[in-house]
């Protein structure tokens, strides 16, 4: 392929425009008084950020940002917004005094944290080698071709373990929002059936063709993660996106609230990760310290479990808190 090289001027102009657009969409999203507009701007912000990661030569981070940061978080925000609107629990515009106090309470710590981050960023040496050399020297010991995967699943796998646990904690937090006991939930929890939009034949046609292809892409992302940008998180995000598509087109069968297989799958990732670490200790090594001969097999199989488990967690997040058992039956006792 003959390369049409970009001139330095064109690159600078592109990067400059990108930087300005990222800052602008972030500002607009935060300051927008309309929630729907804020969510849409947040998704655009995430996509632009993914583009910025690509420009910085970090396709792994770009993939994660586009799939999780923009895509899935956007879906979750839109779902929450729809839920709030259906239940008419969107708060009325705040009165000036209380709103201002709340704004300062949020804005001031955020400004301090942002200022500190900016200070640290400005103090960084412009061309520090970072860990690139170290990773390159030891990558052979892991058997995987993708340095990012080598760091995430071997050198610094403790960080990844915590990330997996955090996703599980998010699901537990969501599930804990389901009210317990009689009389705690009113009939407003379940939206009236008439508000459900009619089935869209064009959307259904499209989703029926897209879903298998997207599942293939998800499986590919898991498999290719050992040698190229990809991995369990990205694969799981694609699987959850397929579920979200099936959900909006009305093709999905909602996971039953207390489905034991789904719950077991959600926990499987964290459990398998910890077990792998403990097994290494039993073999006389440090926690999560993989032996060179086994590293490749262990990484790829753990990533498979993680992809399935994270997908289950993200799907549970998209589906939202399960309905309280009593509401799944029509309520006869209410007039």
């Amino acid at each position, binding site marked *: *392929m*003959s390369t*049409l090289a970009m001139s330095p001027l064109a690159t600078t102009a592109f990067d400059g425009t990108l930087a300005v657009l990222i800052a602008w969409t972030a500002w607009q999203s935060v300051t927008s008084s309309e929630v729907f507009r804020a969510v849409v701007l947040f998704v655009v912000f995430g996509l632009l950020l993914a583009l910025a990661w690509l420009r910085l030569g970090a396709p792994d981070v770009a993939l994660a940002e586009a799939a999780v940061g923009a895509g899935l978080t956007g879906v979750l925000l839109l779902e929450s917004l729809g839920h709030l609107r259906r239940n008419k629990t969107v708060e009325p515009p705040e009165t000036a005094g209380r709103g201002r106090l709340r704004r300062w309470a949020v804005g001031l710590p955020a400004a301090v944290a942002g200022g500190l981050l900016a200070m640290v960023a400005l103090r960084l040496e412009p061309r520090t080698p970072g860990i690139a050399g170290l990773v390159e020297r030891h990558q052979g010991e892991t058997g995987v071709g993708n340095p990012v995967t080598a760091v995430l699943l071997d050198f610094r796998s403790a960080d990844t373990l915590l990330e997996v646990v955090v996703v599980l904690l998010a699901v537990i937090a969501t599930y804990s929002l389901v009210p317990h006991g009689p009389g705690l939930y009113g009939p407003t929890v379940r939206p009236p059936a008439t508000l459900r*939009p009619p089935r*869209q034949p*064009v*959307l259904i046609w*499209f989703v029926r063709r*897209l879903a298998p*292809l997207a599942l293939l892409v998800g499986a590919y992302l898991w498999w290719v993660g050992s040698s190229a940008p990809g991995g369990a998180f990205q694969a799981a995000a694609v699987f959850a996106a397929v579920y979200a598509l099936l959900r909006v087109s009305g093709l999905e069968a909602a996971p039953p609230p207390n489905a034991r297989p789904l719950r077991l799958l959600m926990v499987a990732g964290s459990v398998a990760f910890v077990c792998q670490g403990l097994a290494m200790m039993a073999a006389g090594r440090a926690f999560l310290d993989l032996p060179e001969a086994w590293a490749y097999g262990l990484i790829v199989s753990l990533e498979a479990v993680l992809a399935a488990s994270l997908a289950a967690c993200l799907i549970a997040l998209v589906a939202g808190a399960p309905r309280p058992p009593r509401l799944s039956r029509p309520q006869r006792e209410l007039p």
Partner: protein
Amino acid sequence: MIDLLRDGLTILLLLGGAFFFAAGTIGLLRFPDVYSRLHALTKADNVGLGLTVLAFLIQADSVMQGLKLVLVWALAVTASATIANLFANLAHRQGIREWRKPDDTP
């Protein structure tokens, strides 16, 4: 010689693509109602993307690379057509009437 010809054709196709993208964006900003704006956006963007993909297609190294480009194009076109249908459907259900010229009494 053949390389020069190919690069020239790529540049022409990219410029054509950029023209349609720009036209679609202007339509999105200037057209009077949601239906015509959807029309401008999806129709023009599809042609713009088609020309852009064509520009890269003649630069492709292998058949596989070319097929991937065609797949990207096909997915984007069907996705944008589906989304246009959803938006128009929603607007129609919400009772938004299509725009008419002010002096055009039916």
